[in-house]
């Protein structure tokens, strides 16, 4: 899982499937970022094949933790199936979701 910093935003790029047997490293990486110094986080979803409910629950928890600390979490560039899943779970109405990483980073600067 790659991560990089752009200004005040950390961009995390998980890959593959976020499901029961693979979600732990993702949870660890996001928790470390939320507990770290970076004010904002963008999760680049472009390499995520699908995300199951365990991944959605993790996103929800991260969003709540970030908001509590006055930080921002955004999702960027979800694939069609991930977009569909986010919509079905209505997470796209809770966590800002952008078509590209640069749009998400720009929005977080606002």
């Amino acid at each position, binding site marked *: 899982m790659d991560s990089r910093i752009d200004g005040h935003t950390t961009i995390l790029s998980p890959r593959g499937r976020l*499901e*029961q*047997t693979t979600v732990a490293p993702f949870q660890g990486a996001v928790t470390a970022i939320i507990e770290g110094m970076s004010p904002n986080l963008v999760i680049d979803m472009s390499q995520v*094949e*699908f995300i*199951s*409910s*365990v991944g*959605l*629950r993790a996103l*929800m928890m991260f969003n709540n933790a970030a908001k509590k600390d006055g930080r921002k979490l955004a999702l960027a560039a979800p694939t*069609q*199936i991930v977009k*569909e*899943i986010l*919509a*079905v*779970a*209505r*997470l796209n109405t809770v966590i800002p979701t952008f078509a590209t990483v640069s749009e998400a980073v720009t929005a977080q600067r606002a």
Partner: protein
Amino acid sequence: MNVAWDLPARTVDAVAVGERAEAWVTSTGCDAAVGLRLALIIEELATNTIKYGYGQECDQPIRLALAYDGNRLTVTYEDEAPAFDPLQQIAATTPGSAPVGGFGLHMIKGLAESMMYSRDGQRNVIRIVLVGERKTR
């Protein structure tokens, strides 16, 4: 075309069968997105069975059968846990709001064309239909 698997109520087995089911579906000529939806649905169903039906990872049975008629993929999922109608749970909750099947059940319903539940003797039987859209050739 039909295929079926019997598996124990263990996450690792459910994920493995989900991958095998996905491979089978895509081998029939279905679009890869149908296979992904199927793998996701199998994982969510099995997670509910393990966590809330049987209450733990165990060797209790899960049976999964797939039937593809060239247009529609019918998924029949069975377990022997206490009776639980997921459709009632979905109707009574919003995504993420319930501790049981908070997101998972809503995801299944949202990704499927139709979903039915019945109690057959000691078994919960869930039938899900996915539209088996063909790959663009």
